[in-house]
Structures are given as C-alpha cells and as structure tokens.
C-alpha cells in the first residue's frame, strides 16, 4: 500500500509510516557511522563497505516487502540487513568477528545471513546474490506461495555476465523477483561511465521485456513506490521487474578509502540530496511532524544503536571449537 494514499483522520496515524521510513534510514546511518568509527580506531578486522548515503534504496525496497519475502544482498549490505529486520547488535557483532554475530563471527560484514527475516545473505562476489534472489523467487513460485524476492546489487554488477543470464531466466519463467540496482556511480574505484556501454541502464532489463524504471535513489518515497509497483506485479504472477536507483556512497568503496578519484564538488552536491533530511523536510512541510519530533526520533535511534554497539563490543570472540562447527549440515 502506498502510504501517501492513506488519509486517516488522525495525523499521527498518517505520519506513522513516514516516520517509520525516516527512523529506519536514521538507524542505518547511525549504524554505519558507528561502524566507520570502529574501523577508524582499528577495531574492525578486514574490509568494511559502508552504505551511508544509500539508505533510501534499502529502506524503500524493504518497506514494500513482507517479513516472509526474501532479499539477497551484496557486499554493501548493512542497510539491507537492518531494513529487513536484522538485530543491530548481532549484525555489529558479526562485523567485529564476535560469537554472538549471525555467523559466529566467521562470515563478517560480507557474509551475513538472517533467514528468520528473509535475508539470504550479503555477498562477497559482485553479482553473486542476483541468482540467489531469482532462485528464492523460483522456490516461492514452484512451492505455490505468493512470496517475492529482491536482489540488491551495485552498478558494478551491471557488467557481470551472470546478471544477463539471470534476467533472461527470470523473464522466461516469470519469476516473482525484483532486480534492484543501486547506482552509486562507482564500481570500486572506477566511475561507471568509463566501463559501461549503452545509453541506458534500464535498457538492460528492457531487452528481456522486463518492466524497468529509473528512480531517484535519494528519495525513499519514490523508491518505495517503484518497489510497490514491482511487488504487486510479482505477486500477481506478472514476473520480474528491474529498478535502477541513482544514489551515492559517501564513504567510498570501503572504510578508509581516501576517494582521490572523486571530485569534492560532486560529493557536496550529493550531500544536499541526502535522503534523511529530505524526508524530514517533506514531513515538516506537510505538517506530519515537527522539527522537534524528528530531532527526538534521531536521538532515540542513535541511542538504540549505541546500545547495540556496546553489546556487540562486549561480546565474546568465537572459540577454537567454533572453527570446525557447521562445515556440513
């Protein structure tokens, strides 16, 4: 259901779905900010890919899904996990390599699985989650449920051959799947234009007769509306959709990326489109929330994330006996 279409008598009730989207985006931003700080102080092992700036994509799409619907995520996946219901304390524990993490601290940021919330994994292989999402859609279809799956990937995955194979099969089998491309302008350290042919990204879906649309990936309401259209088609048996959202990653490819390949002016221009203040302004303009209320929401969310981070930092590391567990089911 489109939140904008609902006009209940109570303003609080009308505001609630918007505030939920706002709170969810704030939560992801606060989480990523904490992760960035922990990384900068040397507490996060390995690689860390943050999604600050891209929150509207994860929140917009996941808000159109049911808890039982499935997502497959990518290496920049903390936002997807949280938007699909992950516990921030367990997520951060996994990022820190602790035993209370989703994978006993043995997967890390790029390998987070939360099937209870329909999340079949962040992924260390660019494009790796795309067939998994389509497979979940095949499973829902063949088992006769009305479940839907969404696969998140970046613009870098647009040039993986795997994507084209899967788009073709999703189309011929009319799989209930959303292909969600988060175009943040860069595949690792390389601008998308320099490695990508073709005038239109959505043409890559259209060539398979898959309904495809561009969306402003900094506008959570626009993302959600596009996702709702796609989900409705999928549930109705009308097959896959392809959504390309234009967005931006503030922190570069990985935490600690100096981003010398970027233009400072460009980064500042994108910050002006930030999805969080944008929705906040929208709510204030429409009289759905006051600035004070939004401020309080932000503080509440930040405090909750701080608590979660505290819990994660206090968590025990895995023991040597955890090394050999779960190799086989």
């Amino acid at each position, binding site marked *: 259901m489109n939140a904008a279409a609902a006009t209940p008598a109570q303003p609080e009730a009308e505001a609630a779905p918007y505030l939920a989207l706002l709170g969810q985006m704030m939560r992801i931003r606060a989480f990523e900010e904490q992760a960035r700080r922990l990384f900068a102080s040397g507490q996060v092992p390995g690689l860390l890919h943050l999604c600050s700036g891209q929150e509207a994509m994860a929140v917009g799409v996941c808000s159109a899904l049911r808890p039982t619907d499935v997502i497959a995520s990518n290496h920049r996946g903390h936002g997807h996990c949280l938007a699909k219901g992950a516990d921030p304390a367990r997520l951060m524990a996994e990022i820190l390599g602790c035993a209370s993490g989703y994978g006993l601290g043995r997967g890390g940021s790029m390998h987070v699985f939360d099937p209870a919330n329909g999340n*079949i994994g962040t992924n260390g292989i660019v494009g790796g989650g795309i*067939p998994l999402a389509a*497979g979940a859609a*095949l*499973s829902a279809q063949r088992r006769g449920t009305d479940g839907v799956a969404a696969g998140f990937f970046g613009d870098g995955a647009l040039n993986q051959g795997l994507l084209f*194979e899967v788009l*073709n099969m999703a189309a011929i089998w009319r799989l209930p799947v959303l292909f969600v491309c988060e175009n943040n302008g860069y595949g690792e350290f390389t601008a998308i234009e320099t490695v990508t042919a073709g005038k239109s990204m959505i043409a890559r879906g259209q060539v398979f007769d898959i309904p495809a649309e561009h969306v402003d990936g900094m506008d959570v309401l626009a993302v959600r509306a596009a996702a709702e259209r796609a989900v409705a088609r999928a549930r109705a048996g009308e097959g896959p959709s392809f959504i390309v959202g234009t967005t931006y990653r503030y922190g570069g490819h990985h935490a600690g990326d100096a981003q010398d390949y970027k233009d400072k002016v460009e980064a500042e221009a994108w910050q002006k489109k930030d999805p969080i203040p944008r929705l906040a302004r929208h709510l204030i303009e429409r009289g759905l929330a006051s600035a004070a209320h939004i401020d309080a929401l932000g503080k509440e969310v930040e405090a909750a994330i701080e608590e979660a981070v505290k819990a994660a930092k206090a968590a025990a590391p895995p023991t040597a006996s955890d090394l050999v567990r*779960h190799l086989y089911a």
Partner: protein
Amino acid sequence: MPEARTDSYRGAVRDALALAMRADANVILMGEDIGEAGGVFKQTEGLFAEFGAARVIDTPISESGAFGIAVGAAMTGLRPVFEVMFGDFITLVMDQLVNQAAKVHYMSAGAMRAPLVLRTAVGIGASLGPQHSQSLHAWAAHVPGLKVVLPADPADAKGLMMAAIDDDNPVVFIEDRNLYTLKGPVPEGPYRVPFGQAAVKRPGRDLSVIATGRMVSIALAAAERAAAQGIEAEIVDPRTLVPLDVATLVRSVQKTGRALVVDGGARAFGAGAEIAATLAEEAFDWLDAPVRRLGAADLPVPFNANLESLILPDARGLAQAMIALVRG
C-alpha cells in the same frame, strides 16, 4: 535389501530421481535438454511426462546463472537436482558452487543450508575432444563444504543418488558415460547407500586396489587377469571421495600390505594423490611397498581415438601394475 532386478546404470539413476520426486514435491530437476528431450544421454527420459514442466525445468544454456538459481532455490526450500551436461562444464558453475553453495551452512552458523545435487557426466573414450572429456571431481573434493560421489555400478548409482537427494549439503554426483549401459542387479524401491562407506568390490589377499568411478570396472577386469597369474587383488571402491572412508581403506591395506590407487582424473594433484597420501600417513606401518598411483595422463584428452586410448590405464596395464607391485 529388497528384491533386485537387472537394470542399467543410467536406468538406476533415473529410477532414483523418479522415486525421490514422488516422495517429495520439493525435489525438482534443472538442466539443459532434460525436459521433453529427456537428456542428451537419455538420463531423464520419461520424467518430464510424469512430473511436468514445473518440476523438470529446461534451462537455457546458461550454466552459471541457472546453477546460481538452483542454489538460491535450495537455500529457500527446494531440493534441486541440477544436471551439468558434461563434466567439463562445471568450470562454468564454479563460483556458485564454490563461493556460494559450499559455504552457506558454515557462514550462516547452521541457519541456512543448500541441499542440492549437481550431477554431471564424465568419460574418456568417445572422441569428444579436450573440452568434453575431463574428469574434474578432484576440484570439487578440494573445496570444504562439498560432498563428492562417484558411483561405479548400477546398485550404487541408485542408492547414492537417493542419499544425495536426502543430504542437506551440496553434493557433486559424478557419473561416467561409459557406465550408462553397464547392467547389474538393482534393488527395487527406495534405498540409500550411505556416504562415507567404501565397498570391497572384490576380496583379495595380495594387494589393495583403491579404484574410483569407472576405474572400478577396469580394476575388476584387471584383477581377473592378475588372478590368472596367481595374484589376488582386493578392489576397494570408496564410493564417496568426500566423506572418505579412510578406515575401510586402511583395513584393507593392513590385510594386504600393498596399495595401488587408480582414479580417472588427471594424475597430478588428483583424487588418487590424496588417497595415496592418506594411506602413506595412516597405514605406513603395514605397507610392504610404497603406495602406487595410476590415473589419467596429465594431458588434455585428445580427439583422435588412438591417442585418446593412451590417456587412461586399461585392464591390461592395470593388471601389469598389480603384478609388478606384488612381485616387486
């Protein structure tokens, strides 16, 4: 064990698929030409008619994407049996197999699993050339999280396939095209051959021959030749490389004091090397001679039939190796 009838290796696998599909609606088949066409080697003949297009799914020639979809389906409730037409083509599904399916259970701390079977056909001897004749099972066996099965006869083929479909892990099931017409007694109805249980296919006192897949048939024929020279070879078929039944292999070597390992893959860094090294470590005290290892030549498998016939040891060559190992 229920009554047995005579069936071919191909028919036995097909029987296992049909029984598993009747028992569990979540078992589906995916692959190229497996539907109405019934498979390029007729491995799925009749299954499309019985189970329909929803469960016997013809994929485009997109191994990587289609197998990736099978992995995602396995992670979310289905039990796909995915056919890779030629063993060589597992190169095309390696990312989905190695980086996704093999690690899901471990990375998710047991919260997710990928119960699927990748079945594929290998085989030297039909002039199929270097890109259609390789036996790459050692690649799969090298990846923790995968199980690897090489049935050598019809009864094992059926029971191992049923066990593979039951298994909650990704299983690589290697069939040999040369065995498809091999006939043997096959028990009626459903039964499982448990993984990790080697079978002594021929008892003998003078040496242990550990043979895999198609090499079991060749080793059995070679053993008859060696017997004519007074050498009694014990033929042990591991049946599954992962898990490997080290105990049965060691027990055989304890009895015979000699071990010859024969695998159909390229010899260098192959399954035979792993088994030979394991026996050297675990059975050293009982060995009266160094472990001997035979396999395919470390070459691409050539097209020309005369050259191709030189790639694998035949029964005669294998018998000579048996005799040489015993007589020193």
